[in-house]
């Protein structure tokens, strides 16, 4: 178990360093939902190249690393209805709130942004409640 925590801390540091480089060099916030959402709804038309390059790295490098390491597992549920509903909610929710775990969580909390802290409290609270209801009460997930 503690090995997982050490890997969590190390991986977290990589995420934080990535966000720090994006801020200090490009002057931008590394928020996954904002970067992807801007490509999808057209609001990020003016810096499409940068967004696409970031998403390309985010997609390709873990794929290559997983191959080198001998595979990786997401252990995602096999219930397609749950997957589709969850995906829709994540897409709508993060864009409505203007941020997700990386934008509000990592980038917001680190600058003590009230919005980031409140958003994080709500998505963790709602996520915890969802797991309690759908796993322990209904047994769906």
């Amino acid at each position, binding site marked *: 178990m503690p090995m997982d925590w050490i890997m969590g801390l190390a*991986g977290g*540091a990589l995420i934080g360093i990535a966000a720090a480089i994006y801020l200090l060099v490009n002057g931008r916030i590394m928020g996954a939902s904002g970067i992807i959402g801007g490509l999808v709804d057209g609001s990020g038309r003016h810096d499409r190249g940068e967004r696409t390059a970031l998403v390309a790295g985010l997609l390709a490098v873990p794929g290559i690393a997983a191959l080198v390491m001998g595979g990786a597992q997401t252990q995602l549920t096999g219930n397609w209805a749950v997957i589709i509903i969850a*995906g829709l909610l994540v897409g709508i929710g993060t864009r409505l709130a203007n941020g997700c775990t990386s934008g509000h969580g990592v980038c917001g909390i680190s600058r003590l942004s009230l919005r980031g802290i409140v958003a994080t409290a709500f998505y963790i609270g709602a996520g915890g409640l969802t797991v*309690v209801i759908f796993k322990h009460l209904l047994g769906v997930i």
Partner: protein
Amino acid sequence: MRILVSFLVGSLFGLGLLVSGMTDTTKVQGWLDIFGAWDPTLAFVMGGAIIPMAVAWRVTVGRKPVLADTFPAPPEPKLGRNLVLGSTLFGVGWGLAGLCPGPAVASLSFGGMGGVLFVAAMLGGMMIAPKLRNRLDQTAVAV
């Protein structure tokens, strides 16, 4: 050059998500599962990411980005209905599947059909969101 930096940033971000175990949905759901076998890994990931980023915010004071003119302005400290409602909807989806936008993209190459389906639904949700926001803004007052 900015494009190259963006690719490097995405690469580090993805590698960090994989190394930290955040592309494994059971670790995320384990963190949210306070009444089950609670898994605190996500707190270590958040802590590990917030520390370098907090240093970076300090460094921005009185300076300019290397390849840009200005740093992003601090957001208005306004909370509002969209922030609360959006974060709540996001949290429900996050709890159901154990995926948020970063790890969903990072795990796309090895997440099988389910992973592809999740990302497709997420992109669909992101497409609907601006219309929904307009609709919401026209009705009632903010919280």
